[in-house]
């Protein structure tokens, strides 16, 4: 029996006891990964957490709000360099992180203005232009990017004599949890509803009292805030920044993660991030074939499972919920 007695109860996250228990077990197991998993997994998992934040941001824009952006690498770069410069100036990690998100969010808000007029492929081209321009600026303006030597970012100092990779893993995992939870909360609130309404029918959304300009700009700002934070985490992870890290193929990476993971799904974004981190790792010396596989994966998803990995996950859960009936 599944009886809900109050509206508040119905709005709870992972409401059913079984799902709740399994989720908590999974989250605890992941938090303890440094103590049971092989060392080599730690840095890879940190990479997944940091990318997932950016992919969730991208999904809020493409999947939920229906606004296509190919300029994610631009926001990533803004976040990364803002973070890098602040860290070199001696600003603490958490403040730099927030500032990096805010800088990218502001840039996203500005880039959002064309979205008030442009739709679909036209918006994709406009944002592509932004991404390319940002890359060129960082590649050519030396005081921004640190010139040929690049930008070296001071490493995180772990407390209590913890080893550095464990500390980085825990910090990144915590940040990932905060941003994922915030993502879930946003999409189930009036904000997310307004995003989806704008995507499904902008005229109806407007006629129901949703200010189109405000919500399109908000979608861009929130999305690029996430992307900026992701960029900052990437900067800290790499320890060294070069503009080459933020070219168009990085934007494509995010796009692949969103499509393969599943449009308009937060858990899909996490799956997608895991996909773009883990699959290239499997290839080893055949790295040149990775873009080929990504292309094939997008085709396969679009033809066989339009909801991507999150769709497969949904079907699996449905299977077990209905078991032994089908």
């Amino acid at each position, binding site marked *: 029996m599944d009886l809900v007695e109050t*509206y*508040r109860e119905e*709005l709870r*996250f992972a409401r059913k006891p079984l799902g709740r228990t399994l989720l908590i077990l999974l989250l605890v197991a992941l938090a303890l990964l440094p103590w049971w998993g092989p060392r080599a997994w730690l840095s890879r998992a940190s990479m997944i957490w940091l990318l997932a934040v950016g992919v969730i941001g991208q999904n809020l824009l493409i999947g939920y709000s229906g606004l296509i952006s190919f300029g994610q690498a631009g926001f990533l770069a803004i976040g990364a360099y803002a973070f890098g410069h602040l860290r070199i100036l001696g600003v603490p990690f958490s403040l730099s992180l927030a500032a990096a998100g805010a800088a990218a969010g502001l840039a996203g808000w500005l880039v959002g203005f064309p979205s008030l007029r442009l739709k679909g492929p036209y918006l994709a081209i406009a944002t592509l232009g932004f991404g390319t321009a940002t890359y060129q600026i960082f590649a050519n303006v030396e005081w921004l990017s640190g010139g040929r030597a690049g930008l070296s970012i001071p490493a995180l100092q772990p407390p209590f004599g913890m080893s550095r990779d464990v500390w980085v893993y825990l910090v990144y995992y915590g940040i990932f949890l905060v941003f994922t*939870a*915030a993502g879930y*909360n*946003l999409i189930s*609130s*009036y*904000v997310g*509803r*307004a995003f*989806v*309404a704008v*995507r*499904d*029918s902008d*005229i*109806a*959304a*407007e*006629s*129901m*009292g*949703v*200010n*189109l300009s405000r919500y399109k700009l*908000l979608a861009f700002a*929130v999305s690029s805030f996430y992307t900026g934070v992701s960029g900052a985490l990437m900067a800290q992870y790499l320890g060294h920044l070069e503009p080459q890290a933020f070219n168009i193929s990085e934007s494509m990476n995010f796009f692949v993660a969103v499509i393969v993971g599943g449009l*308009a799904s937060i858990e899909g974004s996490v799956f997608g991030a895991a996909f773009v981190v883990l699959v290239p790792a499997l290839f080893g010396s055949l790295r040149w074939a990775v873009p080929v596989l990504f292309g094939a994966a997008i085709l396969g998803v679009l033809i066989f499972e339009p909801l991507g990995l999150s769709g497969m996950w949904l079907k699996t859960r449905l299977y077990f919920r209905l078991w032994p009936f089908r």
Partner: protein
Amino acid sequence: MGESLLEVRDLTLKFGGITALGGVDLSIAEGETLAVIGPNGSGKTSLFNCVTGLYRPTSGSIALGGESLLGLSPDRVTARGVARTFQNLRLFLHMTVLDNLMLGRHLHFKKNILAAAARMRGEEIRHRAKVEEIIEFLDLEAWRDSRVGGCAYGVQKRVEMGRALCTEPRLLLLDEPVSGLTAEEKEEVSYWIHEIRGRFHVTVLLVEHDLRVASRLCERMVVLDRGLMLAEGAPAEVQRHPGVIRAYLGDQ
């Protein structure tokens, strides 16, 4: 019947050389139901789009309760108390029935994005109670958690009406509320439109092709033909008007 709620004066809408509306005058009293009828392409929906701010009229004035609506964006117009349904349904097809109705409450939310991100749900719960009232009124309980895209046409039409009601309008614009429905559904919708007025204190402006339904619901009718006002008056008078017969059936 109280004071005039909506005043439309000399409303003209031109698209290049085409005159969609040529000097329409209209006034609706508070609590009244007015039907706009006319053949296809006579400017009924254009009139709706002007009132709701989707179109900018070329000239003329539109005022709600004495305040001009001209130049306001559609969301501002809705905030003033005008809600509408669409002739070709415009629902949020990927949302559930409940979420569609909750979006109708969007205007009334106290907006705080940080509280939303922190999962503070006081506002959601407050508005949910209001939405449930409308779900109950329109008999939508069975579809509350269904995706609107998968619901039957009759249900979708009902959801659209409910969504408009959720904005708590003073003036409700219904664009062909019974088109495409079965005889039984038409009866139900007529009943609801009749009930809405007393229960939610709304004034209704409706466009309808089904003259039987329209004349039963409204006190007054306005006939448009090629953007011009052809006749105005009680349903029975209007239907005997020679110009109206000519517009609908052609010359003898």
